[in-house]
């Protein structure tokens, strides 16, 4: 019998993160700091652990809570739960309802573990259903890192060519120790007309660096007039890292700055002991240049177990899916 409990108030961020690292499917979205980051945007993070009959920890979950009129509660767990999937069962649902203090609960999870049929069978048996309106494609490109030689030999010809072209910028590419939001936003402004890019608000960036700064690695490239013409950031946790931010001005794009920045960042990651680099999502029907760029690094497609949901009622599930479709960015 597996039981779920909220972590005590005395649990420190370090303790939570150290425990998280014991599970093979740990990820940054389940890290304590990420919960704090989302807290800045109206979410209340709940942190739960599951133990078996011998009191051994078997699973963990950080889930974001938001309460709506009528005491309807939305629970959203990016990257979670982690650990033994047999623990993601009715006992978890009951604990979530208890923690939410509501009989009207909708919960969506987005597991980052690799797709496995046996996991799907477990989720279905525990009343989870595949999200009909997923927020993400459920796919990413995963780059396995070992050393620079192997990375370079795994590059596509196109990628190699553009990396060579960016070599003249090599000396201008440096670790950005104290990232300046204004400079980053200026780069994004210069990219406004560029299709298919995420919107990055000042508030989001500020919170990211304030809360998760210790887990963020960022490189910048300066142009001729000492202005930032490109940057690239990833977030790292344990021996994994995830693409986070990236941008280049027209001048930077012309000089293929993103290739040089990516190489510098990956080199740094390898030195830090990162072994698995997640290129943070890929849309199979998305922009071809994005797919080619990510594939060209030597990364391989990886299907996440993905988004699953459970609710205290069918109508709530339908309503939440409708709402998420209309306004899903906030998750």
């Amino acid at each position, binding site marked *: 019998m597996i039981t779920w409990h909220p972590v005590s108030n005395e649990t420190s961020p370090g303790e939570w993160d150290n425990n998280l690292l014991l599970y093979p499917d740990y990820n940054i979205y389940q890290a304590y700091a990420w919960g704090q980051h989302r807290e800045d945007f109206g979410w209340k993070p709940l942190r739960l652990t599951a133990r078996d009959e011998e009191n051994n920890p078997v699973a963990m979950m950080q889930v974001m809570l938001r309460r709506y009129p009528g005491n309807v509660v939305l629970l959203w767990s990016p990257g979670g739960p982690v650990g033994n999937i047999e623990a993601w069962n009715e006992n978890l649902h009951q604990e979530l309802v208890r923690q939410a203090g509501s009989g009207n609960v909708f919960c969506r999870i987005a597991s980052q573990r690799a797709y496995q*049929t*046996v996991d799907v069978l477990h989720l279905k048996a525990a009343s989870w259903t595949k999200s009909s309106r997923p927020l993400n494609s459920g796919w990413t490109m995963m780059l396995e890192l070992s050393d620079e030689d192997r990375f370079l030999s795994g590059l596509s010809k196109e990628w190699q060519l553009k990396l060579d072209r960016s070599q003249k910028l090599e000396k201008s590419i440096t670790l950005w120790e104290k990232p300046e939001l204004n400079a980053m936003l200026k780069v994004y402004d210069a990219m406004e007309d560029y299709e298919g890019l995420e919107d990055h608000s000042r508030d989001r960036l500020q919170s990211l660096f304030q809360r998760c700064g210790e887990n963020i690695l960022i490189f910048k490239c300066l142009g001729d007039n000492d202005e930032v013409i490109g940057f690239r950031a990833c977030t790292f946790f344990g021996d994994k890292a995830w693409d986070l931010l990236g941008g280049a001005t027209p001048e930077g794009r012309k000089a293929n700055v993103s290739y040089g920045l990516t190489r510098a960042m990956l080199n740094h990651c390898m030195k830090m002991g990162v072994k698995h680099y997640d290129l943070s999502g890929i849309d*199979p029907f998305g922009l071809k240049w994005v797919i080619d760029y990510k594939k060209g690094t030597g990364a*391989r*497609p990886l299907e996440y177990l993905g988004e699953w949901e459970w609710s205290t009622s069918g109508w709530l599930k339908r309503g939440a899916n409708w709402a998420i479709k209309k306004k899903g960015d906030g998750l």
Partner: protein
Amino acid sequence: MVNWQVLSEQISAETWDNKLLQMPDYNMYQTHAWGRHRSNFGWTPLRLVAHDEENNLKAMLQVMMRRYPGNIVLLWGPGGPLGNIDAWDDSLRGALIKAARSRRVYCRISSLRAYSGEDAFTLVSSSWTRCSQPLNSGLSLCFKLKNEEQYLKGMTKNWRYNLNRAKRQEQSVSLWEDPDIDEIRKIYDSMEELKGLDVQHTAEDLHSIFQVCRDNMVAYHCVGNDGNILGLKACFVFGSKATDLLAANAAEGRKTSASYWLAAAAVTHAINRGVTHYDLNGVDPVSNPGVFKFKKETGAQLFEYLGEWDWSTSDWLKKAFNWAIANRSGGM
């Protein structure tokens, strides 16, 4: 760029199975015989081959077609397509629409090759979607066979104990050269009643399997000292692969652990025929843990299929077929 074309019945009867063996992921459901077997139950088998610009064979698909009112066409490709996955694209779907002579087509495939992220990504990128209502678990247990010694070594102690126990009972297991369908049904009747199962195989289904696929079928039966048949096991052998197809034990056979001896006899027979890959034909460790344990303890390894994917000329048709399949799937 590949070109898919439908083979005529005559050409496919002469060449299909030989071509099939050139595909590493060949399997029993894509054999000519299996297509003929399913044609006894209202399905029309279509057999398509894909060639590249140099006329090299790249991929194959045997798909079962059924037409419904309003010229709605259901296509079902168990075990297929085979070969180069890049060829399972719009060119295949175009050929299927043409062969179906309909604009309202729903097609479901069920690939038995091992799951890989890259293959799944290729399918998603070429507009296949994972079935929302799959017919099977998508998992199986498989043996990579070298010889009998290796097979026997792989069993758990518990499984070997039960095998030896079965051999000590007053019963014998032997090849069933000319299986009697009525006797097989009796065993199934007994098992279905005991376990509260739906009918697993009708007499017509069994007649058709043993008649149409007789060259591929290997059946063993367990007979008690009183001459009663206590259980049976049958597999389908094609090339160097075998797949479990039938397995049933009467109430008496359960008491004597007949299933252990029957399972071992079928695998040993397959080894002696040169089979190197034996598929125990599906497991569900979550909803059917008992059968999973029985199969797992033979020493077979868990195998994840690429699985079931579908595509349709319209979304509503896809939804409707998934609903219909979820509610009434026995015929597929």
